[in-house]
């Protein structure tokens, strides 16, 4: 029974994505299913903000997670996301060819697709820490959102540079989520570009080689582009731009929330304190434990169902709730300041405190109770 519970609880996204697809095919008001579910999740996440569970192990320390089952689900998400895009393309086709789809239906379909393509990125992230076939599925899932560069940048840059200014995915204090989305997205793409350039130079190969994973990554996105051009022409392209913008915004919002304002001295090891944990019940189950960032960044090879509470700094609310706050930067900054102050006082090393202090002095945002250096 316990094994069933531990494994099935992570099926919220697959089930909701399928419901979203079903809504897209039903059309009309049902095309908004994905948006409705997103709103519902905010409520569920907020309602469970005080429930924090630990990872489940038996008396011998073995996890109840069934690896084969979880991997089949993760791999299956790739065709499910393809069907999601096809469902939107079908709506676009109807809209442009026979006008049987109303404008408000199309808008609902585009928003629903963007939101669930974005939430699906959690599987692209999880599989990016896998080898060979898992890594390739990760690239393919990310390519559906035009973000295949993420897989390399996440592993080769973010996990190494986290908490340092060299990591575009770490948001320094004061940055807002909108600006972060641009900087992080293009920063990671540039990193992936440079990584390939260096690798190919070292191996005496041309930049325009089939070994160039940066170029290949973007080529993997071509089928999506072709699908949307074919189904909707200019409107199809606009729809794809909206879908990709939403999905990449959600991806970068996760990066933003995971590390905002935390500081690591260059060259020092990544510790639990360098990531924020968001581990209330709904966030943990929905985001397949991606919110256990503290543990994940120290044990990057660990299966998500084995990640646990490790004493990392904790915002005490889930991702959906926190995401709402990030949308209004002054509110987000106000909410997070007390946690940053606490981090500076209790977790930061002397050097990290100094970096934080310099930041506040530079930006004249010094809060009264900060930094007992």
């Amino acid at each position, binding site marked *: 029974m316990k094994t069933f519970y531990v494994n099935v609880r992570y099926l919220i996204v697959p089930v909701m994505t399928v419901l979203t697809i079903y809504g897209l095919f039903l059309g009309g008001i049902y095309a908004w299913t994905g948006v409705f579910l997103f709103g519902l999740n905010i409520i569920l996440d907020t309602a469970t903000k005080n429930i924090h569970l630990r990872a489940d192990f038996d008396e011998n320390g073995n996890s109840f997670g069934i690896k084969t089952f979880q991997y089949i689900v993760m791999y299956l998400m790739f065709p499910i996301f393809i069907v999601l895009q096809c469902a939107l393309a079908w709506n676009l086709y109807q809209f442009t060819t026979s006008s049987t789809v109303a404008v408000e239906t199309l808008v609902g379909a585009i928003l629903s697709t963007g939101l669930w393509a974005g939430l699906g990125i959690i599987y692209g992230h999880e599989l990016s820490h896998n080898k060979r076939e898992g890594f390739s599925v990760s690239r393919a899932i990310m390519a559906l959102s035009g973000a295949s560069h993420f897989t390399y940048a996440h*592993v080769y840059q973010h996990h190494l540079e986290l908490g340092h200014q060299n990591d575009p995915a770490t948001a320094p204090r004061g940055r807002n989520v909108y600006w972060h989305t641009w900087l992080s997205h293009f920063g990671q793409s540039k990193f992936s570009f440079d990584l390939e350039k260096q690798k190919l130079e070292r191996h005496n190969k041309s930049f325009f080689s089939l070994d160039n994973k940066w170029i290949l990554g973007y080529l993997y996105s071509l089928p999506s582009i072709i699908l949307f051009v074919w189904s909707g022409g200019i409107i199809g392209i606009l729809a794809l731009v909206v879908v990709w913008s939403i999905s990449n915004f959600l991806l970068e919002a996760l990066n933003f929330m995971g590390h905002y304002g935390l500081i690591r001295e260059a060259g020092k090891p990544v510790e639990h304190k360098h990531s924020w944990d968001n581990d209330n019940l709904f966030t943990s189950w929905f985001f397949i434990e991606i919110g256990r960032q503290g543990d994940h960044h120290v044990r990057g090879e660990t299966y998500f169902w084995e990640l646990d509470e490790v004493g990392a700094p904790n915002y005490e609310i889930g991702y959906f709730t926190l995401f709402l706050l990030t949308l209004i930067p002054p509110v987000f900054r106000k909410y997070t300041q007390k946690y940053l102050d606490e981090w500076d006082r209790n977790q930061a090393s002397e050097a990290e405190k100094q970096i934080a202090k310099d930041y506040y002095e530079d930006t004249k945002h010094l809060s009264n109770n900060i930094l007992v250096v």
Partner: protein
Amino acid sequence: MFGLFKKNKSFTAKLVDYNQEFVVEPGDSLLTGALKAGLPWPKKCQVGSCGTCKCKIIDGKTRAEIDFSYVLSPDELNDGYALACQTSLKSDISVAVNLID
């Protein structure tokens, strides 16, 4: 996180400079096996990006779980260097590494 299905054979890794050996369980990386055996193997990122866990496979068959060419030079690749955190074993092996003092 090695692949979809568990392989069920464990192998032994022998440290050539230390006269020690340890078992690597199925599904574990070379680094994980060493750490489980309590060896002070150098490590940092554990995702194959920093190169800290670099070692040289002297003998035996291994499988690179990710592309090492981002971290190791062509010469190192030719000489049999590997990243222990991203290496699985296909047979018993002998390996050279500088353990942390």
